[in-house]
């Protein structure tokens, strides 16, 4: 298979790096917000440790924005970066549908779901061979990127909206669907943890598969190999 000389469209690269900035700010300020009340609940209400399904550990200051405990400052950053994050995601999706990057590179094809293909894909990953699919991305890559772009990142925005009391009069149905405000808050936290998990594996795989050419491709767009 010949790979196209242009590996990543400008819009993909713009989305990817602005998303990274927004994400780091949201995640680190989110940890300060979590420190303000470290218990997560299911349902509409909850305020005491005994009602919690999870007591989250206290995150050390160096992991948080602003680097010392201030819920007020952390919330300032969180609600500013939320705009960058949500608008970039919207822009990324529109670009990806218009230039057909989604259909061409990320949507999986039926034959890729055959057990034999999935097995072969996993085996290749274990040999650290990531460049084996037919298209730009192999099956597992497509699936992961698809889930991140289509479920987890939009889920961050929707659960974030659901925790905001000012939005609830209009989006009450969404809060109900998530099982109540405290459930929505739990999902917001769980999704943030999933994003972090993806981030770690993603960066690890970039490093394993050749960080220099990968980064060059994601910055300049040209296939860096």
């Amino acid at each position, binding site marked *: 298979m010949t790979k196209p000389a242009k590996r990543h469209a400008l819009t993909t690269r713009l989305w990817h790096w602005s998303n990274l900035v927004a994400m*780091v700010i949201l995640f680190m300020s989110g940890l300060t917000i979590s420190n303000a009340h470290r218990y997560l609940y299911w349902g509409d209400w909850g305020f005491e440790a005994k009602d919690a399904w999870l007591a989250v550990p206290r995150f050390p200051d160096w992991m948080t924005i602003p680097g010392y405990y201030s819920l007020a400052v952390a919330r300032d950053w969180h609600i500013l970066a939320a705009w960058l994050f949500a608008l970039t995601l919207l822009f990324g999706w529109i670009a990806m549908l218009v230039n057909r990057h989604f259909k061409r590179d990320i949507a999986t094809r039926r034959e890729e779901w055959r057990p034999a293909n999935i097995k072969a894909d996993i085996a290749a990953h274990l040999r650290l061979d990531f460049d084996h699919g037919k298209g730009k991305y192999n099956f597992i890559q497509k699936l992961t990127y698809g889930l991140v772009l289509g479920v987890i990142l939009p889920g961050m925005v929707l659960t974030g909206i659901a925790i905001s009391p000012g939005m609830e009069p209009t989006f009450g149905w969404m*809060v109900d669907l998530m099982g109540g405000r405290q459930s929505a808050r739990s999902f917001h936290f769980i999704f943030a943890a999933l994003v972090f998990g993806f981030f770690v594996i993603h960066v690890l795989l970039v490093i394993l598969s050749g960080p220099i050419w990968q980064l060059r491709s994601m910055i300049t767009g040209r296939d860096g190999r």
Partner: protein
Amino acid sequence: MKRRNFLVAAGAAFLAGCNKVAESAPGAKLLSAAESWHKAAHRFLSNREALAPEYPRSAISPYFRGNGSVDPTNGDYQAQAASDFANWRLEVRGLVETPLSLTLDNIRRLPQRTQVTRHDCVEGWSAIGEWTGPQLSLLLDAATLRPEARYIVFRCADELSGARYYESVDLIDAYHPQTIIAHRLNGEPLPIKNGAPLRMRIERQLGYKHAKYLTAIEAVASLEDLYGGKGGYWEDRGYQWYAGI
């Protein structure tokens, strides 16, 4: 261990950068502008009168947590509490045509609204309770706002860390049907930890807007001359004035 040191160093550099941005004039402006974009988005997407969810009585949480001041010791509050707040007055004043001074009995005799609503604290927890009291709009109409009035300030009896508590809302939230002056919680007179004898309910915003130990309602044209100038005790300490986020 080395990698961890690297992460810590990178984190520290990033944080220093963030704090530089936050301290710079345009950075600070951007950070506070984001709050008003959220407010604009919320108000664009929601009808001004749209109601916060109300629950059946069976949803009431077993106990209603108190936060911030839970037993004020300043002024004559304790003496007032000992006399069951018999001499408590609620003033309606500022930019109004007819200032009012109401006793608790006056307030209980007004038409009442009872609502089972959820209270969301900025820290993250929520509790559900049933609140009873007259709508704020009733008092504002009785006193008749002057055209210059743009905000309603809530004056409180309690001090927190040595500073007087206060809060404010704009006229949209002041006239919202669920904005009431509560004197009952779950069918009982308001407990001291929850703001006895009177507190605000501003149902579409976070808990710190719901001023407790209410002594006066004041119509003003600007928030700048009050205390820290940001329109509330927590706002003066950096929190968002629009607390619907």
